């Protein structure tokens, strides 16, 4: 018996070693790519190095392909060719583009037109398209000379004209004999002798779509832990290193020297999240903030009090579109949407912050799961 005592102790020790080894979390591997869509994609994933290498190689290819298909700045991309076309031209596109545009149309209908990808000209008119990041040269008849740091406000005749271009119902997306097409119908407007046709801007969804595609890539490689984020716009969270939830903090839409970087915290796992707000890209003239989110109905940047919106749901592309749409909707319609059957049936979680004058009110359907981390914000009664 005495001789067996060491063995009795050795066995649990070996078992302890085994358990501790299996519990140990590996260091995450980080993939970063700042080359596409004006922001940096970042994947923090837990896997073996050879799997990570495969992920990184395929992620590079995938992002490049998305850029070639959906970046309207590439004249040969599906969206670039569509944007360059005139009414009635059938533009052949890939099946992926066709399927994505159908999904956009569903969201356009669901949100009552609040998510509208046909605001290309309005976005350009207000100075928020990508060309304004790199150049201050006047290139179009409606460009204004910069007055100091910012563009003067646009002329109303262009606002009115370009509002008529923002009719997504006039963009047809169809399949014909196994091929896929986009086509614009009756979109032409003429201002000062120059013809304009509707153009698409997928900036409101492409980051969500990219994270969705990369999450599928990760899943196909058996990667189940980590997260994939695109700038501060979209993230797909898997499990954390311990198989549990990540802490999600949302950018404070009114950051300042004395205010914290984030205004709200929650926990997420195996879910997609997207945020939008008037704090990302904007300018101010005479104390009025003009942000990059355009309301197709008014033809102008949104200014209805909602300063930030976050959507948590299973579909990253939809989350990206809906977070923008909620800001366009304004308080009443956003509350109505948040209370809708669609939201409850699909488990969509929503948070939006409203500038209510002296304070900021937070509206949400997940109040029990959030913590507000900036005293200036409080849950609406």
């Amino acid at each position, binding site marked *: *018996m*005495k001789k067996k*005592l*060491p063995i009795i*102790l*050795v066995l649990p*020790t070996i078992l*302890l*070693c085994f358990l*501790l*080894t299996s*519990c*140990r979390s590996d*260091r*995450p591997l*980080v*993939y*970063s790519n*700042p080359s596409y869509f*004006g*922001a*940096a994609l*970042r994947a*923090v994933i837990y896997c073996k190095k050879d799997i990570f290498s495969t992920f990184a190689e395929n992620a590079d290819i995938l992002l490049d392909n998305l850029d070639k298909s959906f970046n309207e700045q590439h004249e040969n991309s599906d969206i670039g060719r569509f944007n360059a076309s005139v009414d009635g031209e059938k533009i052949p596109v890939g099946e992926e583009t066709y399927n994505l545009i159908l999904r956009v149309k569903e969201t356009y209908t669901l949100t009552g037109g609040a998510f509208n990808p046909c605001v290309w000209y309005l976005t350009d008119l207000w100075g928020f398209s990508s060309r*304004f*990041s*790199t150049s*201050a040269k006047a290139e179009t008849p409606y460009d204004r000379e910069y007055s100091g740091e910012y563009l003067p406000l646009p002329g109303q005749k262009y606002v009115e004209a370009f509002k008529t271009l923002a009719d997504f119902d006039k963009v047809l997306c169809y399949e014909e004999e196994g091929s896929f097409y986009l086509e614009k119908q009756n979109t032409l407007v003429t201002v000062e002798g120059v013809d304009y046709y509707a153009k698409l801007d997928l900036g409101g969804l492409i980051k969500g779509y990219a994270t969705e595609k990369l999450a599928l890539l990760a899943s196909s490689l058996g990667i189940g832990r980590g*997260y994939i*984020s695109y*700038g*501060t*716009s*979209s*993230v797909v*969270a898997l499990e*954390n*290193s311990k198989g549990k939830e*990540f*802490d*999600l*903090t*949302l*950018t404070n839409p009114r*950051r300042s020297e004395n205010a914290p*970087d*984030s205004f709200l915290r929650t926990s*997420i796992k195996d879910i997609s*999240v*997207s*945020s939008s707000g008037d*704090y*990302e*890209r*904007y*300018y101010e003239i005479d104390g009025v903030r003009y942000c990059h989110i355009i309301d197709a109905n008014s033809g102008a940047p949104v200014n209805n009090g909602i300063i930030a919106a*976050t959507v948590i749901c299973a579909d990253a592309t939809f989350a990206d579109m809906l977070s923008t749409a909620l800001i366009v909707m304004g308080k009443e319609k956003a509350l109505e949407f948040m209370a809708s059957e669609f939201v409850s049936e699909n488990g969509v979680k929503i948070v939006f912050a409203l500038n209510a004058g002296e304070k900021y009110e937070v509206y949400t359907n997940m109040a029990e799961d959030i913590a507000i981390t900036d005293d200036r914000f409080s849950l609406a009664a």
Partner: protein
Amino acid sequence: MRYTLDKLKEQKFFCRGDILVYILIAVITVVVMCVFLIPERQNALERINIYYDNDLVYVFDMETRQGKTASGYENIIAEDYSGETIRVTIVTDKGENVVEIGSSYARMASADCRFADCVRSFPPIKEGGDIIVCLPNKITVTGEGVAVSNEIRL
């Protein structure tokens, strides 16, 4: 049976050989605990790298708190060690950016580009893999180290 119990009672529980085995087991257990339970020394942020037009132009070592400008780029980089934080100014044909480096973070403090997305939209670099991009001025700032945080910032 009676004989066995009596014999056992007579025996010492700890013989010299047994003690050695127990000590060995204790040592192995402590070593295993150290290796697997005490977190590895992980530096969330070891270096800050600054790129201009995809060329690495400046590296700041967070441990030694010293920066090094890449050869040939001395004319576009200026360092200021006078305050609590270190400020690195990059002046190129594209524009001017200022990177602020604190004890455990780096952020874009200012940029003269149109919307200053890099200042407004990018959260501070706090761990390996964090990145800030200024597209108009072609400046990229990356964090080198380990991604240790459980926090996702959106």
